[in-house]
């Protein structure tokens, strides 16, 4: 039975091509691998190989023919002695089903469905009233959270530069080498790309790594492994395997360390589906969110801040204190304006709220805590009450978290707004070294106050 040779698709985008040249003629015997023809695609001239043995019967498309559509029969291949003067009926040939060769875009139907889910706002307190509290720095809270989780699950281990014998460049892992030994507290060479890949592989293999980046700036060397390997594998494997792990370290500007050591990655990572992104403000946030992060079955980006490490906050004394992701905290209740912030941005938001109160402006301050998932409900409920919103973050203005929140508020609460949403951000410049310039590049409390006055028309 003769087989129809069809015009092949020879590139991902080819829909038609030119049959430039036949290298065989009718009656030739061919075997698998022999070059039959040269075909010009949109990219190059390609050789078209035989995949079956047989005799070239009729050539249906002459050489030099342009615009031959993919899947058009171009020749017949048959066995010896077979009559191939006329094409076989289509039913006898290996024809593709009705799916077009280059799939037309699927009907948009469900696809435009919003990825944002607006669950009702969860306003429950993080800990029961009357819980005993103790004062603790963010640094101590992170250390305590990691120690508790490592005691709880022996598959949790920590890997990074200077975390063991040096006791941590920022002392977050202080004492952990003594407590857990070198099997579980692993000092690495200065090799972010490599050790991040190894940690992601270990997570595929069933462990739960905590990767410390000395600072998030250095994770740029490893960002391919974070996004292409850790974030996407669950999806690409159809749910068979993923990377339950935490990437953590200090993020954003410290003081006078210049452009390469002073960048906020919040918006970068918050864009990526498959990651969850956490940016704590207080010690209680740091503790409760870190414990949740280590237990989560997904890759978590945990953005800390050097300036906050040494600040003290009240932390509940509980056996097992965790904070769920996607639950913002209203740090200050107010009625005139909503200030939304996270991480170090919260220090400006809180100072601004205090000063604004002196001027008789009541600001509600929302601490987002996680940037993926984002607690949209709490923001929208607040904006519907105050009718005004200012977002505060340290990162650059273009494509910022504030941009995204502004767009979401506009879509979901346009009729409630009495003023445009203002995004307070760091300046659109690499971080300068000079003290005076650096001060101007960073966000200030005064800028937040000015923005609030603008949206409240004061």
């Amino acid at each position, binding site marked *: 039975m003769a087989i129809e040779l069809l015009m092949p698709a020879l590139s991902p985008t080819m829909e038609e091509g030119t049959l430039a040249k036949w290298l065989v003629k009718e009656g030739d015997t061919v075997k698998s691998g022999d070059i039959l023809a040269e075909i010009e695609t949109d990219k190059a001239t390609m050789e078209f190989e035989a995949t079956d043995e047989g005799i070239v019967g009729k050539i249906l498309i002459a050489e030099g023919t342009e615009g031959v559509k993919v899947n058009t029969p171009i020749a017949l291949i048959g066995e010896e002695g077979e009559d191939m003067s006329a094409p076989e009926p289509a039913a006898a040939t290996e024809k593709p089903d009705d799916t077009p060769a280059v799939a037309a875009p699927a009907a948009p139907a469900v696809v435009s469905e919003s990825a944002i889910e607006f669950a009702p706002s969860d306003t429950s307190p993080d800990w029961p009233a009357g819980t005993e509290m103790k004062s603790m720095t963010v640094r101590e809270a992170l250390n305590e959270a990691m120690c508790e989780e490592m005691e709880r699950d022996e598959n949790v281990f920590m890997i990074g530069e200077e975390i063991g014998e040096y006791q941590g460049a920022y002392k977050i892992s202080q004492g952990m080498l003594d407590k857990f030994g070198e099997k579980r507290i692993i000092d690495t060479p200065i*090799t972010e*790309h490599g050790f991040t890949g190894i940690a992601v592989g*270990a997570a595929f293999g069933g462990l739960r790594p905590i990767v410390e980046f000395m600072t998030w700036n250095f994770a740029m060397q490893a960002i391919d492994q974070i996004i292409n*390997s850790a974030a996407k594998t669950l999806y690409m*494997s159809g749910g068979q395997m993923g990377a339950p792990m935490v990437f953590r370290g200090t993020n954003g500007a410290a003081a006078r360390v210049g452009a390469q050591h002073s960048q906020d990655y919040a918006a970068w990572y918050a864009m990526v589906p498959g990651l969850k992104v956490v940016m704590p403000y207080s010690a209680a946030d740091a503790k409760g969110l870190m414990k949740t992060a280590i237990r989560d079955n997904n890759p978590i980006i945990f953005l800390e801040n050097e300036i906050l490490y040494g600040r003290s906050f009240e932390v509940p004394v509980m056996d097992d204190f965790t904070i769920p992701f996607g639950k913002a905290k209203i740090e200050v209740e107010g009625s005139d304006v909503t200030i939304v912030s996270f991480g170090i941005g919260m220090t400006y938001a809180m100072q601004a709220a205090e000063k604004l109160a002196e001027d008789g402006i009541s600001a509600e301050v929302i601490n987002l805590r996680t940037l993926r998932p984002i607690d949209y409900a709490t923001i929208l409920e607040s904006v519907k009450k105050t009718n005004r919103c200012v977002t505060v973050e340290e990162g650059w203005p273009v494509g910022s978290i504030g941009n995204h929140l502004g767009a979401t508020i506009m879509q979901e609460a346009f009729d409630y707004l009495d003023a445009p949403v203002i995004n307070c951000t760091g300046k659109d410049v690499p971080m300068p070294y000079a003290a005076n310039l650096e001060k101007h590049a960073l966000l200030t409390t005064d800028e937040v106050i000015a923005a609030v006055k603008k949206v409240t028309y004061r």
Partner: protein
Amino acid sequence: MAVKKTSKKPNVSADELLGYYREMLLIRRFEEKAGQLYGMGLIGGFCHLYIGQEAVVVGLEAATKEGDKRITSYRDHGHMLACGMDPKGVMAELTGREGGYSKGKGGSMHMFSAEKHFYGGHGIVGAQVPLGAGLAFSDKYKGNDNVTFAYFGDGAANQGQIYETFNMAVLWALPVIFVIENNQYAMGTSQKRSTSTPDLYTRGEAFGIPGEIVDGMNVLAVKEASEKAVAHCRSGEGPYILEVKTYRYRGHSMSDPAKYRTREEVQKMREERDPIEQIRSMLLTGKHATEDELKAIDKEIKATVNESAEFAKESPEPHLDELWTDIYAENLPQETA
């Protein structure tokens, strides 16, 4: 070091030879079919065929045991078939259908099987190598004697993360076999034009990783080398490098205009070194099998491949709901408290 031929007279049984013949032939016929389906527009995007390189995975897999892991780049169909994944599921992933290993969401370059310990299928050149060392790390951490095969090509051998990984694999004595599948062309760039050292395995010497060159067109030579490397890794001696010299007959991907090498070069390799022909003639001259018996195997394999192609055509496209699944893993209530 010169390319090592199998030193002794091959000490293999007829059954073993037939097994290799069958496995290599399955890969070849599967890939030819994939090429056809691509030409028909049923497979989209990028599709990198393994034709010519069959002896590499079949020989390496011959020395593995349950629990061993493997991870490779985007030229991955052969690895999946050689570790026992179902041709139907692989082909249906190539056509982007629900019955594929990744439910149609991964495609040719991104396929996985937790059951067969196949960890992909990675599209970023070289990224699978630290991941492979990480898999080996997880086995060492758990205290078992499993080994991981981390495959990469001569092209990936110039990525920096490979050497970062070599360093840590030695420091931490990770049970990982780095398999350099040297098919001599990184896409369209020959090894001569891309690589400062003629022998890639020697790059491990700077880190103290033992290694050797293997004739990748000879499945028995590959198997022998694999056994040696596996024994080294399993006994806790740390990593090992096998530079397996091989050749791909087809283009880098389906849209390769093949201007960087001559047709004669490809033809010569096919005629003189073909891995399947080598075993075939060994089977026939050693009187381990008759022409008719081999023909029967050919027929059986063709049927398996045709079945996989039929399955891949008939399996429905994934439901639109799949767009939104597998982005995040579920957390059990007790995990997050």
